[in-house]
């Protein structure tokens, strides 16, 4: 007897030979149900966080060419008015950022000015940890994206939270979820010989384990089994005609998972390895970094349109700090404070939010004084985009969201 899927559904399943596949199917359906429940809470929208690590120089990203003070602080590395891509009579994008300029002019890019926090840290690692946890100057041990997952999907369905990187970011550290972390989708697989498959696929319950490192490894092994097949299949089926540019970041991988219908609602990716830490001879390299980031992000949105999910995805980009307002003697810039954030997507109400910080009233270390607590932008993502209204517990304080979704 040959059964097709509808026959199986109509007649029910009999026979021992079907037992194994039934167990599998119930498993998958069970997970799907949990993911659907989580959908209800997060309204099906997807948030992609893009970290620009190293401290992007916001002043040479969106250049305040209309402000003489900018050129006074940066006589050598200041970008001339004629070389920028103006978006109004005051600001212009770095000339490498064709994509951002277009997104902005299409009304799909929100720029948030002056993002930072009180008592800023000038250490990459401390400041990044503050942004990761949304808890400056505290020892919070879970990341804000991880806590967000805990809040909107407390059942912790598998594959809800994905972090594409060589290591797990503090931002996704979660109490309940085991984030899916991988780097190369082609390598996110267990290579095995035919005979070994059964043993490698079995997940015996080790019971309660007293060694915490061992428990952690066992949990991770389970998450790996849940996700690896899905990710690999998604990647092998992904064939996009869109050009993501030279670097592409990890955004094509995100697009592949979205196209494959992964139940993931939160993605975390990074422009890695402190790339934006431009202490010396910065202009060429900085422009290049911006071009890569701008190309990749613009392509990603274009790709989402192709996939038919453009209305469901928003990208939020940030850096752990901006850079010192005056240039240094090595034609670069040192660690600073307040900076721009970007939010891009089809459903974003493009424009400028927040107040640009003054270039004449700096703090004693010649840094911008922040005008927007960065957690306001997080709050905008959590409530305005993902639809979870009460952000104060999650962010440990009240932060007014920006009305940037229409």
């Amino acid at each position, binding site marked *: 007897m040959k059964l097709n899927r509808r026959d199986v559904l109509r007649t029910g399943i009999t026979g021992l030979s079907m037992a194994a596949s039934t167990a599998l199917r119930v498993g998958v359906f069970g997970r799907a149900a949990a993911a659907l429940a989580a959908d209800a809470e997060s309204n099906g929208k997807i948030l992609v966080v893009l970290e620009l690590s190293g401290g992007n120089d916001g002043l040479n990203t969106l250049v305040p060419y209309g402000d003489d003070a900018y050129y006074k602080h940066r006589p050598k590395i200041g970008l001339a008015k004629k070389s920028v891509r103006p978006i109004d009579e005051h600001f212009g994008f770095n000339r490498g950022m064709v994509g951002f300029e277009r997104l902005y002019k299409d009304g799909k890019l929100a720029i948030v000015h002056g993002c930072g926090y009180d008592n800023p840290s000038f250490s990459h690692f401390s400041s990044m940890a503050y942004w990761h946890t949304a808890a400056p100057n505290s020892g919070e041990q879970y990341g804000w994206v991880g806590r967000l997952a805990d809040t909107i999907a407390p059942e912790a369905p598998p594959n809800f939270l994905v972090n594409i990187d060589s290591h797990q970011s503090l931002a996704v550290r979660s109490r309940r979820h085991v984030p899916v972390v991988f780097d190369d989708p082609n390598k996110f697989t267990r290579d095995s010989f035919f005979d070994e498959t059964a043993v490698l696929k079995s997940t015996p319950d080790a019971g309660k384990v007293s060694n915490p*490192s061992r428990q952690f490894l066992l949990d991770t092994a389970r998450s790996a089994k849940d996700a690896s097949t899905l990710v690999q299949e998604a990647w092998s089926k992904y064939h996009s005609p869109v050009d993501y540019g*030279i670097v592409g970041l990890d955004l094509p991988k995100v697009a592949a998972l979205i196209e494959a219908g992964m139940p993931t609602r939160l993605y975390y990716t990074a422009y890695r390895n402190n790339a934006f830490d431009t202490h*010396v001879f910065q202009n060429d390299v900085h422009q290049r970094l911006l071009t890569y980031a701008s190309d990749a992000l613009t392509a990603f949105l274009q790709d989402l349109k192709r996939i038919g999910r453009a209305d469901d995805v928003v990208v939020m980009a940030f850096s752990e700090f901006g850079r010192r307002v005056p240039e240094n003697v090595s034609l670069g810039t040192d660690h600073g404070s307040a900076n721009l954030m970007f939010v891009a997507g089809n459903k974003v109400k493009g424009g400028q939010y927040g107040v640009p910080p003054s270039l004449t009233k700096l703090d004693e270390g010649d840094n911008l004084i922040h005008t927007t607590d960065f957690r306001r932008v997080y709050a905008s993502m959590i409530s305005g985009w993902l639809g979870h209204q009460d952000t104060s517990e999650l962010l440990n304080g009240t932060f007014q969201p920006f009305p940037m979704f229409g």
Partner: protein
Amino acid sequence: MRRVNPVGALLAAAAVLALTPAPTLAQTAGPAAWQNDLTPITAKDWNRDLAAHLLERAGFGGTPAEIDALAKMTPAQAIARLVRYEGTDISHLLPFDESGIHDPGLEPFPPSRPAVTDLAKKNGEALGIKVKPTGNRRLQPVVDEFFYWLRASVLETNRVAYWWANRMLTSPRPLQEKMALFWHGHYAVNEPKVRDYRKLLAELQLYENHGTGNFRDLMVAMAEDPGMLTFLDAGVNVKGAPNENFAREIMEMFTMGVGHYSEKDIREAARAFTGWNYVDLKFVVNKDQHDDGVKTFLGKTGNFDGVQVIDIIMQQPVTADYIAGKLYRFFVRQDLSPELQKKLGAVLRDSHYEISPLLEAIFLSRDFYSPASVGTQIKSPVELAVSTYKKLGLITIPGAPDFNNATAALGQRLFSPPTVAGWAGGRSWITPGLLLERGNFARDVLFPDINFVAPDRVAASEEVRRVADRIRQGMDITKATIPDTKSGEMAESNMSADRDEDFNTRYGSFRGSQLALERVKPIPRDTAQVHLAKMVLAEKPKTTTQVVDYLIRRFMRVPPSDDVRRELVAFLDHELGTSDISAASTYLEEPLRLVLHLIMSQPEYQLS
């Protein structure tokens, strides 16, 4: 919901019948009360399991014979043997075999390709290569030389890493190499920034020669080290315009940790380091760029130079606490109480920053042998690879799989720490993706890929390969170097990458790679010489259960669950067609390798 696996279930069911009661495979630790207790253990506490634990942490694990040798000593002798290694002869270890690839004229190496071509336009030459007087692409030879050195330095650095990994595997002073690995992660200088293998080799030798010596002296040596000076842009830190990067990282990363100094302290310290620079491989102070004015640093005032700043840092109690805590986390476990950290800091202070007394105190302590410490550390990728080879009884690091690519895929490439913070270590070594990759590494060792291609003998990227192919087909440079783009819109970066006027960057990248490949010596590509059948038969096992238990004991510090052990035995029974080893002794090798691959794929295999 647990997935039911019919094959696995059948195998497991069959195995239950044949199985003898599980012996204790778990390695013994001391009592739980030993946690946080720095009292030295005594000879009567000492046993083979504790000796094995010591060798895992103070070295890269050991073969049964190496463990036996330590177990026969008293704990104090065993630890002295490892820590006070100066008397142990290593004259048989060969020095690094240089390819001889550094050309005169390469120093000082400009920071970027545009900087090189600007220099060439201005001076008519750069990197020791003159600009062509007339003709097309007059700067091309200069650009070729730039890319030559970029690639050659990477390839030679990979050879240095191989040389080092072989020392980790074979040196009779394993702690010397382990400490070098600690300092390498601590100072975290990387090749992509320094772009000169010679500076990295010199640093490695500094770590090896002073790794258990005086921390203050090591810190001064590192502050004057050309690799470090390049890495943290100290060369551009000059009077009147101090660059803070170096001063900040010295305090935040190398000595005190964040929160123990102000931004003003950083600026003042930066002034003290102004003018510190290097010429080729030598440290110099450019007197006219050095700010010898009065500075106020951590509450002290004087016209300090960099060494004096380091000495003031060493007077801070927090410095000893920070270094002692970091060493403890590297060697023992991640969670460390503030009280214990203070005690360890006091040991370091009392010895005036001599490292070896602190190491002895740690390795002798009850705490080190308590259940909180034993079998709870997640191996770094380099430790995983080296200890795997060690336990297999290898005497050289295999060329296939490539050591550097294998460990990089697991998150750790020697001479390439991701940031100035080094590798985060601990649980950050493991993600779902990386856990699978660790099993795949074991498979590549036990079943080498017959299609393996030596990564140091081929083009470094798809793009270089493409350009090379087109050039060989007789295309002109412009056509050959047009980037391959997919249909649709072309990204800005691909349009502007190459202007092809005075020089062609993509061609330079190809030509440079080709020159580097010619001049850098190849890495030997032998596969692992594994003889599991011989290893196992020497133990005279009668049953598959005994074989599996032997392999678990030899290769794992924390055994898997009984269920997994039963599955492994059932698997071996199935592969051998019998549970009687004497019947199967002539065809053991491949089934044993499969079982060992399964063992190395277990979550518990990652623990040290």
